[in-house]
């Protein structure tokens, strides 16, 4: 099993690497086109700001590479937001794998959302063995709207997509690598896809 993590300027890479190690997977952090396209699984993590991350991806031609990947891909947090069409953060045109728009949380809630929240209406094998209303760890100020690609929902002032899927592309807004046993289960499920 060859697992690669996309190397760019917005990675929470260590945490993801360590989480994979805990389930017996030794992953490679790389921006090498050949390595990424020939991996069995690709993880696209991210903590940071959307416009600078997109700019960096474009400068390395990683934007085109990611959208053309054929194997299972898992976007995490900012990685998921970058896989959507557009983000209000820095008015950024993103990769457009999912049609969703990314919006800033508004209203009488604290922003960023930091902490454990529930996920529900779970779909696909990514959530095999994970129970409805399981808690996952979230840290984010922007959210993806609901759409036909939604495979998990969460409520924080508004109901939004905490997970998306289209063809070989999977994504989670929360951090499976920091979400205790349930997060570990999700990573194991992804590796088995």
């Amino acid at each position, binding site marked *: 099993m060859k697992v690669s993590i996309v190397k760019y300027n917005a990675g929470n890479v*260590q945490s993801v690497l*360590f989480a994979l*190690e805990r389930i017996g997977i030794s992953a490679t952090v790389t921006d090498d086109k050949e390595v990424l396209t020939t991996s069995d699984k690709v993880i696209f993590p991210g903590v940071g700001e959307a416009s600078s991350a997109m700019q960096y991806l474009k400068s390395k031609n990683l934007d085109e590479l990611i959208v053309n990947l054929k194997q299972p891909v898992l976007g995490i947090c900012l990685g998921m937001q970058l896989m959507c069409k557009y983000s209000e953060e820095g008015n950024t045109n993103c990769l457009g794998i999912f049609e969703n728009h990314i919006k800033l949380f508004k209203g009488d809630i604290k922003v960023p959302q930091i*902490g454990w929240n529930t996920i529900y209406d779970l779909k696909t094998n990514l959530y095999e063995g994970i129970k409805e209303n399981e808690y996952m760890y979230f840290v984010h100020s922007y959210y993806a709207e609901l759409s036909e690609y939604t495979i998990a929902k969460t409520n924080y002032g508004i109901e939004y997509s905490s997970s998306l899927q289209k063809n070989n592309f999977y994504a989670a807004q929360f951090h499976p690598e920091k979400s205790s046993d349930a997060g570990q289960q999700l990573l194991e499920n992804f590796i088995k896809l």
Partner: protein
Amino acid sequence: MITKRIIPCLDIKDGRTVKGINFENIKDAGDPVELAIEYAKQGADELVFLDITATNEKRKTLSELVTRIAKHINIPFTVGGGISSVEDVSILLNSGADKISVNTSAVKNPQLIKDLANQFGSQCVVLAIDTKFEDNDWFVYLNGGRVKTDFKTMDWAKQAVALGAGEILLTSMNNDGTKNGFAIDITKQISEAVNVPVIASGGAGNMQHFKNIFKNGKADAALAASVFHYKEIGIPELKTYLKENNIEIRL
């Protein structure tokens, strides 16, 4: 619903967990990594590691310890103590920390908060405030509670959030170590005044104290050290108790 968080804090000195009363009389309390694993298993929502010697002794990185912790636990953790530059933070985040906390250095150089938020995002910048009530107001203290400033805690909290702090860790020195409960008034005031989560710290002695700081103090998270270290309160019992009291909690 987002849950309230229970956060055990591990004060670190020379790579060991330690505990003092009112920041003094430091005693050994075990290996941080072992304790961290145990807390994660028991259901802690997050952990905080504070290198309490760092500011005074100018000791820089905890990066090796941070990496060991990150390898072994699957919940988020914050690292603080003596962090004074973008470079310090970069090292700790790259070692596997999820968030960092700044205290003294941010008061001395508020621009640091802005630089950190711009570089790494507000979500990983926790502003720690040590505060003490005297002369009829809450004031900010520095260097682990040794140095008084003229800054009012409320003003500093608001300024720091405007600069980009993503969370506030508020420790009341009047309450810390007393086991008489958290400082409800100032926690509530800060929590209502800023739009970022507030972690209450200092004074936990029993389970009711946690209930009170969530219900009356409007804290988003509660941090404690000795009651967890010395097993006076078990995390599973505490969380069950809070849930029974209609507080949203991850069980």
